[in-house]
């Protein structure tokens, strides 16, 4: 669905991404994971054209992403960031409908789509009329997801969508997100630094370190056939005390 070929990116002297090739398979959830500063967000932002690669090409559904066509291609991608990136001056509803209204959708089409998304995301009905500051963190993420899905995009890109939430809300939303991904069957690319989250969502997991892809595969691949000692170190570091405790028992 999305194909990056020989792509690299640096900020000043800082090499954020070394020459990288990556293909995002259609209809599956791909998780980009790694420690902070590993280049996972850079990779995601290259896909939606928020930044341009220094070298190499990004293709979306076979079309090369250029400055000229990136705006139209974005209509086929939904993008969700950590704290939602909602526009504070618009109600949840207006945030969600902004783009559809701009494209001149009929109100009938807008309402149908909105109703469908409301059911899917399980946002309380009165939440739609609230401003972002009046919503909880979890509700903001649901609104942000609805906004990303409003144009019924082919691809959904999420940059640490659960990163700013407290644990209970996080686990609720995590379950809901997975259900939504499965219902829609869209191509999803999700960035996280949390291995359990990656295992929960990911059909394909891409592990990065210092601007390079270390290994890609299923969680089982990473566990059983680590390509590099770093993979094992990364996994062990994330097992956490509870898991270790469980492992320690006979």
């Amino acid at each position, binding site marked *: 669905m999305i194909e990056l070929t020989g792509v690299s990116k640096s900020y000043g002297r800082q090499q954020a991404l070394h020459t990288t090739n990556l293909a995002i398979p259609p209809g599956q959830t791909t998780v980009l994971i790694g420690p902070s500063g590993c280049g996972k967000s850079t990779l995601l932002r290259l896909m939606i054209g928020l930044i341009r690669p220094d070298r190499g090409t990004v293709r979306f559904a076979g079309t090369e992403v250029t400055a000229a066509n990136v705006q139209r291609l974005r209509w086929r991608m939904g*993008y969700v960031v950590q*704290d939602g990136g909602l*526009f*504070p001056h618009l109600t949840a509803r207006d945030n969600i409908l902004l783009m559809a209204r701009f494209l001149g959708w009929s109100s009938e089409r807008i309402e149908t789509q909105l109703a469908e998304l409301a059911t899917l995301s399980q946002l309380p009905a009165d939440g739609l009329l609230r401003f972002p500051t009046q919503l909880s963190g979890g509700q903001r993420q649901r609104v942000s997801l609805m*906004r990303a899905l409003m144009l019924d995009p082919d691809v959904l890109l999420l940059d640490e969508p659960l990163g700013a939430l407290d644990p209970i809300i996080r686990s609720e939303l995590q379950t809901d997100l997975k259900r939504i991904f499965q219902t829609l069957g869209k191509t999803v690319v999700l960035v996280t630094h949390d291995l359990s989250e990656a295992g929960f969502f990911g059909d394909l997991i891409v592990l990065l370190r210092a601007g390079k892809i270390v290994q890609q595969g299923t969680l089982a691949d990473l566990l059983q056939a680590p390509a590099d000692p770093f993979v094992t170190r990364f996994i062990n570091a994330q097992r956490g005390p509870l898991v270790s405790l469980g492992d320690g028992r006979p």
Partner: protein
Amino acid sequence: MRFRWLFVVLLAAGCTPPPEIRIGSKQQPESEILGEMATLLADSTGARAEHRRSLGGTRVLWNALVKGDIDAYPEYTGTISAEILVGSGVRTVEAIRTALAERGMGMSLPLGFNDTYAIGMRKDLAARLGVTRISDLQAHPELKFGFSSEFMNRADGWPGLRQRYQLPQQDVRGLNHDLAYAGLISGTLDATDLYSTDPKICRYDLRVLADDRGYFPAYQAVFVYRADLRQRAPAVVAAILRLENCISEAAMIDMNARVEEDKQPESQVAADFLSRELNLSLQPRLESRLGELGRHTREHIYLVSVSLAAAIVLAVPFGILAARWPIAGQGMLAAAGIIQTIPSLALLVFMIPFLGIGTKPAIAALFLYSLLPIAQNTYTGLQGIPGQIRESAAALGLPVGARLRLVELPLAASTILAGIKTAAVINVGTATLGGFIGAGGYGQVIFDGIPRGDYVGLIVWGAFPAALLALMVLGLFEVAERLVVPKGLRLTME
């Protein structure tokens, strides 16, 4: 039937419109009385005459005359030779007339009185020091002088006087002429420049020092007018010229006193004089104080609103461009900042050669002053939008213009509005300086009031309404804020 008759009259009047005559005058009672006389006389010929009073000084009036903004104004021969015919050495009335004719201007014969400069001190101080002549001042280098700004700077004023009499005084300052009298009385000043027809000489019991080296030239009062007025409105010229050799020094001092001391309107004083000396019964052009207040309010609001609207139209896009291209933007904002440092009065006078006198230069100056606060706040407001919000708008696939309109400007609205509010309030204050160049407004009351010593009047009818207007502008913006700033943002602020 009645209306048809009226219509015919209007039509006839419309076919041959009487010439419109504009008389100027300086910001001093004497000049305004003379200007009012000329206006009344022009009116008496059936011309529609307008009196643009209280214009700020010789340069302003002369430039306005050359540009055709005014047709005639009262002037003094000494001022013409020193200020207008600079360096030509022309001094006699005949020579001045010839020199002005070469510049396309006509000049009347002297009106009859000589309003020369003089140096005055308090009588008791002069007696104590034994000073009766200007040359006596040489022996008292400790004396403090305060001169009107015009006298301080003009070639035939203080610089020449100091040289001619070899005066040693160091403590010499320029200030408003009317404040100089107050300084003399309180003892903070020892000597100042006077007009010889100044009624304050008697009022404050001043000693006029003899010009024993004949420094001050004659300042015969005359009317200067555009030569083309003779063709355009010969009757008006003839009427004004009836004042030649008609006003004695005593009569002028008396009229000045009636205006300055007794607070009578110039128009009344001028009309009384014309009826006594020329046997003309003319209706003085009087306006009630409330009517005047209404007119000044309209003029003031006009100056502020037109200049502000123009500034918004230019400065908001300016700020948007600055936010988009920060390097070029900083340059543009710096340029607007430089304009801000030009003293307002200087900027106003600087405009006159290009825009004449009246509302145009005032609006232009106010417009320039409004640019910086509005552009700066637009820039700051847009810069302050979090990168994540900006990026979210881009990631949705909104084109640049739509991002600006739907997301960025609404988010910056309260900051932009605050900039416009700042500009508006500053404008209400600065617009009072419009009185200096004939733009009207509350400044007119203030500038008229200072020479007359009518401080209560200028506060009640000028300064106070201006302050009130500023407060109303603030209130208006409070309301505007409710309308313009999106509700979601006001929630955040609360």
